[in-house]
């Protein structure tokens, strides 16, 4: 509250200096701690920054970044489709579909992603050929480090995406579905054309966080030899023994990608918020 001229002299509120002094002391201590840490790791540590810089921008790393982005993009897109299907199954009235979807989520959320990735990579061990009615496929030809990585990430993140989408769908008032049905839509049409576009504003922020997590989680697939950012740096480290330098290269690239993704997410959310500003939600213009 600011003092006004009408206020009596004895009612002036004086600032206390105590809290400001404490704040300043805390800040100084924090700066000292950070400075010491930086000195230990960068100053006296023996990281070859020239090596870091050289490999940062090497073709091998560019390929790795491309693979990371591809793994993230494809499994994200796939998880949106599979997650929507699973979410629709979960909120349906069909007990069998519900059970299948919830078992899927139970399994893929309940086991470590690393285990799932290694499992898919070794699928050929117990399933040498995949027999389909019209053809049979040699599993070892199908399962490469890249396809196994994609399979593992996509199936796993779908379980989480399903929960995010389901949360969005059930946040939309039931009256919307009833109104959609009453004008003659089928339940599927009502879900896709009326409920889903409205659920997006609830889904988007959480799905964005999931996508950013996924970007970093792709590093796990280096264990099966996929040459994404982590895989590329690890194979360089194995040949050159620049172990720490390569971890720094990987970290810097993840930081760059995550920063860009975070900015994109903020931008997207701002646009969504702006379109809701006047009230109307103008996502997915339908007519």
């Amino acid at each position, binding site marked *: 509250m600011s003092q006004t001229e009408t206020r009596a002299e004895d009612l002036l509120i004086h600032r206390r200096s105590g809290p400001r002094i404490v704040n300043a002391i805390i800040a100084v201590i924090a700066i000292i701690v950070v400075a010491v840490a930086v000195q230990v790791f960068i100053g006296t540590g023996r990281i070859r920054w020239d090596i870091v810089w050289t490999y940062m921008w090497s073709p091998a790393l560019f390929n790795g970044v491309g693979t990371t982005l591809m793994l993230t993009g494809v499994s994200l897109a796939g998880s949106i489709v599979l997650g929507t299907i699973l979410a629709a199954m979960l909120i349906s009235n069909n007990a069998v579909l519900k059970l299948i979807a919830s078992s899927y989520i139970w399994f893929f959320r309940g086991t470590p992603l690393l285990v799932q990735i290694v499992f898919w990579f070794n699928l050929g061990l117990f399933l040498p050929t995949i027999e389909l009615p019209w053809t049979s496929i040699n599993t070892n030809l199908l399962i490469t480090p890249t396809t196994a990585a994609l399979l593992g990430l996509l199936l796993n993140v779908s379980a989480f995406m399903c929960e995010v989408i389901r949360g969005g769908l059930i946040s939309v*008032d039931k*009256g*919307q579905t*009833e*109104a*959609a*049905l*009453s*004008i*003659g*839509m*089928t*339940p599927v*049409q009502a879900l896709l*054309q*009326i409920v889903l*576009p*409205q659920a997006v504003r609830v889904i988007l922020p959480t799905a964005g966080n999931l996508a950013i997590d996924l970007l970093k989680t792709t590093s796990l697939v280096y264990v099966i030899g996929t040459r994404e950012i982590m895989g590329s740096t690890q194979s360089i480290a194995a040949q050159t023994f620049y172990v720490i330098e390569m971890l720094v290269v990987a970290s810097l690239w993840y930081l760059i990608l995550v920063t860009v993704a975070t900015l994109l997410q903020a931008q997207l959310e701002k646009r969504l918020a702006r379109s809701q500003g*006047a*009230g*109307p*939600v*103008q*996502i*997915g*213009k*339908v*007519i």
Partner: protein
Amino acid sequence: MHNPSPADRSFPDGIVRIRNLRKSFNEHEVLKGIDLNVRKGEAAFIIGASGSGKSTLLRCVNSLETYQAGELWVEDYLVGAERSGNRWVEARASTTARRRSQIGMVFQRFNLFPNMTALENVISGLVMVQKMPKAQARERGMDLLAKVGLAERAGSYPSQLSGGQQQRVAIARAIAANPAVILFDEPTSALDPELVGEVLSVMRELIKEGMTMLIVTHEISFAEEVGDSVYFIDKGVVAEHGSPQQVIRQPSHPRTIEFLARIR
């Protein structure tokens, strides 16, 4: 679902014919044998205390709820069923959807689509379900908005409209596909008192035009003024029905008398 005998189709001529309708939620029986008949062009009113099953009855008519026993006919079909040879089998989702487009429904809370303008709401069924060409649908949509007095608000989103305006848009949406009957579930109950009149006058217009309507409401004097028939529902059964003159002016059932005294 049981097979009605051919005699069942000799119901009094009507758009909606309901006989001995029973509906339970789990163990809880909500409709305990409802008889109700709405002729073409009739404005039939349903009154009754909260929780007596009025909404459930309306929702059964356009399959938003299923029923367990009795008969519920709309025009020439048994709701929830379709012909297979000479038997009735459970209706497919597509059949139910097609039938619903021939029944308008107006909800207590409007349920307009918030991401569409007033015009887009009105023509949503025409465009997304009937696949009417957009230009033609827009033309019809503008006519409908003019009819409910909102032509100049065509581009407004629901959040920019008052409750009364939203409900008028919802009515325009409900009549867009020329339904055989319109169901109103307490269309003015969510409105501020000063906005009730504008919605009632739109409904009055529709009644004058000969629209077949089944209306749940607590606006007793409106029912008395424009209704052709009034059904008083009490604890899941029709306790009394007849002309507004009979049911509202000279109620004979003690429950009706008590109810009317309470809400007036």
